């Protein structure tokens, strides 16, 4: 007797359909699993056997062959348990075979027959909807997450025997409700821009970065508050749209992060500088998303940028240019989303002391700066300073007139709205996404700023790429100020954030 059950294999942060075919016939009792299973999948034979028996169901003493189709794709992880068990029950007519067609199943079994939560359920639900399934059965704890996908009925099931009841029609739970945090507008009050004393320059630069989606570099001594500032960037970015939130949730679900509810906050990732290239952009034998993907739609913070390995920083080239990571595995290419704002930080010089006490020679300094160069710097639009704040400012009452994250966010949202309208149908969402050609088309300069720009290019050794970056930032500054055209003062400010000419007088 043959039964077919649909399940999904997680691949990167997406999923593809896998048909579990179970054939049970007379012969020497055996349980064979084919279709390129990895260890965890192969071990599912033992879990399925125990779970079926412990639920009071029958495990046939027959020759059982399970095939995971398509047979040429490697299968990994414990998520196939449920489909194999249900296929077995169908093939032995313990559940009605005709009911199985409309369901997709995904879940891990425990020996007791309980269905355990798994990673990546959101990706599975998206895959199931795309494949045209009307019903999805998942572990009960994952049901709220899977239900975030509209257009497919998700039911959560806690044990294998309950599942059998459901397939028999003896039990019909209502469809699961999407798990959305109760108060999505409740931003974390604990980290607010208003907590940061001083640092007006960095705050301004970060609000420009947020408004235009620009990558930024913060320069300042250790302990001045670079991390504290970067941590507050997600809070001044506009709240993610539902689609963006779904993307974030999908990534985090596939990586086993998050709590299974819709992500209403933008992610903030701050990997340590010892991270490998693979850790940063993803990869591995079974490709896992890297930090840049985990920061998708949020902020990736690279503290002590010169300390990162060259390979790791260079690997960021593709994600920064294209907003996605491609990983080659054999004949297949996996794609991870990777659209994050990168905030990097470094010291002024290797000794990290204030300028007055600096003991670095130019050779030290230029060596340090050389470590900074590379593809990442080409994508950094803004450089700002973070200074040691005098103690007197730190002990103030703190109420002051410092802008809160919500206030900054409102300005950012207005600027973003202007950009969305201007960039409609160009493929870019914000100024930071514009390439050189689009920048020049979208940021025409009127007379006064043109003269400024010419003077600047003459004197400041501005490269072509640097020119585009200045234009992009100037456009964002103008958006923040509500200027229709880029004005001279916007351009001036943008010029001062530029990164070009760092080595102008270097030996």
């Amino acid at each position, binding site marked *: 007797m043959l039964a077919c059950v649909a399940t999904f294999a997680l691949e990167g942060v997406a999923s593809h359909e896998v048909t579990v075919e179970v054939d049970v016939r007379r012969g020497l009792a055996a349980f064979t699993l084919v279709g390129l299973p990895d260890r965890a999948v192969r071990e599912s034979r033992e879990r399925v056997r125990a779970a079926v028996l412990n639920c009071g169901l029958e495990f046939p003493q027959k020759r059982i062959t399970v095939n995971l189709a398509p047979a040429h794709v490697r299968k990994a992880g414990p998520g196939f348990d449920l489909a194999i068990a249900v296929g077995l029950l169908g093939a032995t007519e313990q559940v009605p075979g005709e009911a199985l067609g409309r369901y997709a199943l995904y879940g891990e079994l425990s020996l007791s027959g309980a269905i355990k939560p798994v990673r990546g359920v959101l990706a599975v639900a998206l895959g199931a909807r795309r494949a045209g399934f009307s019903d999805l059965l998942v572990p009960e704890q994952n049901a709220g997450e899977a239900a975030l996908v509209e257009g497919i009925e998700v039911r959560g099931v806690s044990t294998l025997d309950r599942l059998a009841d459901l397939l028999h029609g003896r039990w019909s739970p209502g469809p699961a409700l999407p798990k959305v945090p109760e108060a999505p507008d409740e931003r974390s009050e604990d980290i607010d821009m208003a907590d940061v004393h*001083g*640092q*007006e*320059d960095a705050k*301004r630069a970060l609000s420009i970065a947020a408004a235009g989606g620009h990558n930024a570099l913060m*320069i300042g001594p250790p302990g001045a508050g670079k991390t504290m500032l970067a941590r507050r960037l997600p809070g001044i970015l506009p709240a993610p749209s539902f689609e963006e939130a779904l993307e974030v949730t999908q990534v985090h679900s596939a990586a086993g992060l998050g709590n299974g509810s819709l992500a209403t906050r933008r992610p903030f990732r701050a990997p340590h500088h010892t991270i490998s290239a693979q850790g940063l952009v993803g990869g591995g034998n079974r490709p896992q998303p890297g930090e840049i993907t985990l920061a998708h739609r949020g902020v990736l913070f690279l503290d002590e940028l010169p300390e990162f390995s060259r390979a790791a920083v260079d690997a960021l080239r593709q994600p920064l240019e294209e907003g996605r990571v491609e990983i080659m595995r054999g004949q297949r290419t996996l794609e991870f989303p990777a659209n994050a704002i990168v905030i990097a930080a*470094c010291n*002024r*010089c290797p000794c990290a002391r204030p*300028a007055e006490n*600096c003991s*670095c*020679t*130019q*050779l*030290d*300094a230029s060596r340090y*700066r050389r470590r900074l160069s590379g593809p990442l710097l080409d994508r950094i639009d803004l*450089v*700002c*300073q973070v*200074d040691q704040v005098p103690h007197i400012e730190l002990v103030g009452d703190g109420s002051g007139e410092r802008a809160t994250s919500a206030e900054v966010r409102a300005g950012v949202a207005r600027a973003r709205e202007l950009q969305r309208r201007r960039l409609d149908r160009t493929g870019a969402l914000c100024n930071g996404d514009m390439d050189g050609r689009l920048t020049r088309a979208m940021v025409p300069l009127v007379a006064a700023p043109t003269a*400024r720009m010419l*003077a*600047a290019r003459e*004197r*400041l050794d501005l490269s072509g790429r640097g020119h585009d970056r200045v234009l992009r930032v100037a456009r964002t*500054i103008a958006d923040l100020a509500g200027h229709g055209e880029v004005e001279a*003062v*916007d*351009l*001036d*400010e*943008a*010029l*001062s*954030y530029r990164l070009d*000419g*760092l*080595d*102008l*007088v*270097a*030996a």
Partner: protein
Amino acid sequence: MSPDRKRFACDACLRRAALIARLAPRIVALLDRPRPRLHGLLALEEGELLAAVAGDRAEALRSELRRFDAGAERERLACAGVAGICRHDPDFPALLLDLDDPPAMLFVRGRLETLDRLREEPAVAIVGTRSPTPYVTEVAYSLGRGLGAARVPVVSGLALGIDATAHRGCLDGRGLAVAVLPGGPDVVYPRRHRALYERVRENGVVLSELPPGARPYRWSFPARNRIMAGLARMTVVVEATDPSGSLITTDFARDLGRSVAAVPGRVTSRFARGTNGLLKDGAVPITGTEDVLDELFGAGARRSPRAAGQPPEPSDPVLARVLEAVERSGSVAMIAEAAALSTAEARAAIARLEAGGYLVRRGLEGWERALGAPILPGP
């Protein structure tokens, strides 16, 4: 003198240069530390030189010298695009003859007609450390540029750090740059200065006492320093610790009775120990191009075009306030506070000042007031 005038290199001088090149690997061992001087080695006659240096190879070299073919050597120079000028040539820089051990030959690449200027105008050697602090880099650049613009030839050694910066400044000021190399005139040392070498060759001269193809040796650096000191009326040390190659150059300059000058450094800094030591010993303190020009030509006799126009204070009061604030602190936040502006406004003002040449970007550290107004592009 026309550029195509036949230059005169006598057989004896050519032969002597060839001999020194042959002996070059053996001279190394005869140096002492910490300030390797050549102790008149290069002043010796051929026979004495062979006896002092050649050791067991003396006889072989002697017979090689006897067979020396000056014609073939001249052809080789012509092929390499190098002009050979011997000390008997009227083009040979007369100042070099003050040395006890003037080079027999100068091998020169570049614009030969500028050698005239080297004789007519007093040249200044700018030397200093290979790993300067950012502050003195700016000083070296500004000195090179100011002197270049004042038509004072700037002599240096194409080395890393101060040397290269002085060359760049001089070239940017459209001045006459003279690079004295430790190896042959076609051997770029350090190699990473290839582009700078080409710039100097196109706009000035590159010269050496060693024939083309000779690699630099440890002894040839101090030997090169004596040529720099000899060519210049004045040697300016921008930053040097002690001991340092720059101090070797000033020793030569002193022995020749030429002026020695130094840029004052921080008294606590070990990087400035050499220059501050020179000042204590009576070197001329240099705080800008004018100090050099005053020392060379007498007070106020010649001005650098840039110095003539110290940048007028910006007329915009906001810019003036910001400029003043920048001189006190490189931090945007503090500049903004001092000028009573928002950081955004302060940054806009800084960019305008930078574009106007009042400020220069100081690496990752913010901005500094530029030393003097930039030179307008010349004819």
